[in-house]
């Protein structure tokens, strides 16, 4: 090591085969020499970043079509700039309020139903006395998470079918009228959220279960010595123990209130239920891709609006989380 110190130049150190103080030497090397030394690492990154360029940065360049009148034949760059015309069109269209309202409402309803149910499920799971039974319940409850959207939607459709669906057959037996639930706008959100709950509650509980596991057993013991019963322990140890996790998850949920994937919506809705079912992303899909006469730029503008608002909400939520719980996501 002494000889390298005396000889000095970075290139020589880079070429030096003795890498004992690899990390310490780094500080005395120039940037170029370091890059040359670690060139293999950069070679590895080449295919990796080619993917990011092809599938992320190139589409990012295409975002400009939201401010242009994109014509496929002219291409992105040559199409004409129109400023914020498409955004104004969107805000003035009757669909604007409908899709924003539906997106937010579905998310809010999901926050006030599925979110607490997930926590309650995790807590009840935690109170089970038999470890074996607990594992069985967990295994069963994760299962719906692994089933594809298409199949889950298929299950919902056949469950609610007016002719052969179990629910309608049961209604028939009890003398109630058969209802075609999926064609009734007033049922759509309930159906959608119940579907999400069925798929997500069990798996969503994992995060709380792991938080519950990390609560120090001494706390329970101390509570017991102080004479706390099971309910008191639950109230004063368990609940405070998972409060930070609940706070973070809630903030995350609120942060994503403006975004909702369209994959299951486009399979589940029908023109007759658009009033309550159409969300921003499904609207973008319908006017931009599904339509025989696609309005590329308009759809891109609506999509960009959703993306930007969501980004701001996430950043805001993170700031809030930092201030309130001293934990942030990034």
């Amino acid at each position: 090591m002494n000889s390298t110190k005396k000889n000095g130049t970075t290139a020589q150190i880079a070429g030096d085969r003795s890498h004992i103080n690899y990390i310490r030497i780094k500080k005395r090397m120039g940037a170029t020499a370091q890059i040359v030394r670690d060139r293999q690492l950069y070679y590895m990154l080449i295919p990796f970043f080619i993917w990011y360029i092809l599938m992320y940065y190139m589409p990012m360049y295409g975002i400009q079509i939201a401010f242009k009148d994109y014509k496929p034949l002219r291409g992105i760059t040559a199409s004409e700039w129109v400023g914020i015309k498409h955004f104004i069109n969107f805000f003035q269209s009757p669909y604007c309020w409908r899709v924003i309202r539906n997106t937010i409402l579905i998310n809010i309803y999901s926050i006030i139903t599925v979110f607490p149910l997930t926590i309650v499920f995790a807590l009840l799971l935690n109170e089970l006395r038999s470890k074996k039974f607990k594992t069985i319940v967990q295994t069963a409850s994760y299962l719906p998470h692994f089933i594809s959207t298409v199949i889950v939607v298929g299950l919902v459709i056949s469950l609610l079918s007016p002719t052969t669906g179990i629910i309608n057959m049961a209604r028939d037996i009890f003398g109630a009228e058969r209802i075609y639930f999926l064609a009734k706008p007033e049922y759509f959100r309930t159906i959608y959220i119940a579907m999400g709950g069925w798929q997500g509650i069990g798996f969503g509980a994992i995060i709380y279960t792991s938080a519950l596991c990390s609560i120090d057993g001494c706390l329970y013991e101390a509570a017991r010595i102080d004479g706390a019963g099971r309910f008191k322990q639950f109230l004063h140890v368990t609940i405070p123990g998972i409060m930070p996790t609940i706070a973070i998850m809630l903030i995350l949920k609120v942060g994503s209130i403006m975004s909702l994937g369209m994959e299951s919506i486009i399979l589940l809705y029908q023109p007759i239920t658009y009033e309550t079912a159409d969300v921003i992303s499904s609207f973008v899909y319908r006017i931009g891709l599904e339509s025989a006469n696609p309005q590329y730029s308009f759809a891109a503008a609506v999509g960009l609006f959703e993306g930007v608002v969501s980004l701001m909400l996430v950043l805001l939520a993170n700031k809030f989380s930092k201030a309130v719980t001293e934990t942030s996501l990034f």
Partner: protein
Amino acid sequence: MIKRKPSEVVFDTCNMILMVLVIIVSIYPLWYVTIASFSSTSAVSSGKVLLVPVEFTLDAFKQMWSYDDYAIWRSYGNTILYSVGGTALSMVLTILGAYPLSKKYLKGKKFLTWLILITMWFGPGMMPNYINLRNLHLLDSRIAIFLIGCISTFNVVLMRTFFESIPDSLEESAKLDGASHFRIMRDIFIPLSVPAIMTISLYYFVGRWNSFFWAMLLLKDKAKIPLQVVLKKLVVEMNANNSQAGMIDYTTTSRETMIYATMVIAVMPMIILYPFIQKYFVKGIMVGAIKG
């Protein structure tokens, strides 16, 4: 053994009952699809099928086998190809990205990491993505299916976190012996990361197996479409039949058992893999939860 109070006994009993209900609700829909696919159409549509197959028959599977609109077996083959091949590609790229980014001494690490992290907070959106694929001439192409969603930044971060937890000393001693980065990665880091690699491969695999959206959008050639797209067509058709049939007509449901049979073969690999998948998935979630 501490004696339980009566109120506790009541609570525990109710809790048990509730949890049994959770198990039933979680499993029954799939069970129903399975038994219905082995039952006769008439038994299914008259609501006799509840717990076990009624009038056992393999008609639904035969009907599926000979379904001409879409060759189900070919699309099944496509799904396997896209899932297995795609997962392999995803893993190669993920590891190639995560390994260098796990090195503290990598020059420009912060900037490069930032370049990929940004993708988690803001996406270009559906339209620019679609137009980009069209400009790359990837419509109706299998390559597109392999490329879309090939790298998940979240998984790269998971992998990187795992690589970071491997002690530096191992790398340094290998360097002393003159090993190159490629060799260190191949012979030290990858063998030590098998659990993490399994977890992440399963994430990719399940995602690819279940995905349908881009395949539905891009692939027009029936020879290329995966099973989920065929299923999507059948499911949407079932929904459309429902709306046309109104309340009375039972004849349109004759295809229902065939659709169930297709669902059964589509979820079967997931169910077989499920015991393994579940364990690894839960692990991945925990790691993700701790490291953020």
